[in-house]
């Protein structure tokens, strides 16, 4: 292709598409979508999301940055891989969905009241604090995700299972107080601090 053609393509390529290509996992595939709709039609989450994948890809091309990154859609993905298996163009749609979700979160645009987002926060907090995941704390955190009263209700509903797990030594209630931690926690903290530095640079470049 001639240089002039390339220049023309760059001119008409939206900034957000470029941003997605540069920063989102597998983002370079987005331009390959031919809008056939098989991914959307094959998605088991059906009506549970705002924008089907095919629409998200079109919105990326149409430069709708905030609407895409704040969409709840990609957070609803259950990773069933139906879309990847059926996409006629071989787009790794599941991976792009997770890439978009993660990028939206990094840019501070992810929806706040979304269960998967909340779960991610709780999970991440546990890792940052302990250098490893404390399953009991995550479980309790999820129970009380939507307030104290709902948390008690959830706990009572899961009582039988909890007691059975304790009885068979699958769950140790003492883990809630302290629990296992990784050895070099300060090393991990340093590592995460450095990563946060890179992240801040990145947000300064692309974020608002």
């Amino acid at each position: 292709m001639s240089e002039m053609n390339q220049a023309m393509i760059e001119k008409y390529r939206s900034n957000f598409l470029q941003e997605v290509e540069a920063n989102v996992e597998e983002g370079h595939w987005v331009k390959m979508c031919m809008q056939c709709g098989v991914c959307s039609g094959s998605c088991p989450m059906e009506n549970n999301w705002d924008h089907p994948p095919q629409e998200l890809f079109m919105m990326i091309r149409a430069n709708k940055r905030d609407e895409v990154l704040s969409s709840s859609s990609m957070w609803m993905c259950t990773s069933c891989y139906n879309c990847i298996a059926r996409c006629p163009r071989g787009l790794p749609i599941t991976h792009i969905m997770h890439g978009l979700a993660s990028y939206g979160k990094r840019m501070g645009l992810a929806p706040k009241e979304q269960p998967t987002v909340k779960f991610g926060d709780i999970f991440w907090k546990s890792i940052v604090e302990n250098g490893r995941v404390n399953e009991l704390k995550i479980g309790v955190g999820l129970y009380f995700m939507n307030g104290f009263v709902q948390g008690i209700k959830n706990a009572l509903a899961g009582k039988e299972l909890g007691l059975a797990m304790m009885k068979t030594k699958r769950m140790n209630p003492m883990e809630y107080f302290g629990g296992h931690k990784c050895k070099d926690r300060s090393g991990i903290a340093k590592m995460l601090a450095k990563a946060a530095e890179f992240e801040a640079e990145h947000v300064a470049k692309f974020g608002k």
Partner: protein
Amino acid sequence: MSEVVATNETIMVVGGGISGLTAALEAAECGKQVLLIEKAPTVGGRVGQLYKYFPKLCFPTCGLEIQYRRLKANKNIRLMTMTEVAGISGEAGNYSVDLKVAPRYVNENCTACGDCANAVEAEVDDAHNYNMKKTKAAYLPHNMAYPQRYVIDPSIIGTADADKAKAACKVGAVDLEMQEENLSVTVGSVIWATGWKPYDAAKIQPYGYDRYDNVITNVEFERMMDPKGPTGGKIQRADGTTPKNIAFIQCAGSRDRNHLKHCSRICCMASLKQTTYVAEQLGDECKSTIYYIDIRAIDRIDDFHQRVKQDPNVSFVKSKVANIVGGSDGNVVLRGVDTEGYNRYANEHDLVVLATGMQSTVPTGIFPEGTVINEHGFIDLDESNGGIFGAGCSSDALDVNRAAQNATAAALRAIQVVNQVAGTEG
């Protein structure tokens, strides 16, 4: 059989469909010796299985008739039916080709009277009708068969049925002693025109071709229009009732990395054409809906597309159907999300026609090393192919018009090769 005369100034054309016939005729009418090889008992190929051509909606029998007329009149063409190529070796101007000739069990005496068919009782799958019906084990492939000569299916050889056929023949045409023959010929150039086959719809798992009786393919729909076909010329569902709401699904197996990567080019026009069959036979009593990614009716044939769009009984949904599930009364439900508004739909139809794609029939393992067959299974135009040229749908997915043009070009290339052998050219 009589001796096959071929020299390194002979052009061998493999495949007697519209492309092969065209290539053979163009070369022969230029005075070249042509050996035309056809695997089936008759020439005519896929075109002989169509009801109408697009965009003029004339009958393919007419076009074939002209080619047959030219074929009969030309002494330069030697036609061999029921013959397959087993291997090609050598180089441009000097190819050695191994041929395998299957026995027809009927010789040149045959007058196509049909007494043998009346005599036998066994029935076999009717390949001309995509196995949608049975035919007698002694049969004429179809009305437009050329040569007009019956065939006895090998499955009845050695049974009482075969003897009945022999006894019924008044002209001594049935020869049950025929054997498979292997022979080797020398030719100067090869035009490969074995055409296409419909993509196996059962492989498109979400569409349930193998699960739902009322999900059929476009080639099967085409056969329904033949008065001598499986439904006697009627558009009907598996239970014999008349459909009221037909869906056509485009790109069923084409433009899809999981199936055929290429665009098959004909299916958009084929479905648009088939909506006119529905209009012609059922009028306002039946609706047609075309589900598509984009309609690829280019240049002058887009007029046809625009004309179909005017029909109030034909509607278009811009969406590749995601999957098909069973409904009531043998109906099926098409599910997906459309691209114009991103609306989720679940539409019930009583008959679904899958516009299945064109799969190349170019074989592997029989061409000389270095012959370039591309990722889609078509023979590329490449210098390293020497004197071997793909024609029609062996070179790309083409409609009849373009296949004939392409075949003429291949004939011209082959002529240059044999001219060099003869020393009359460069």
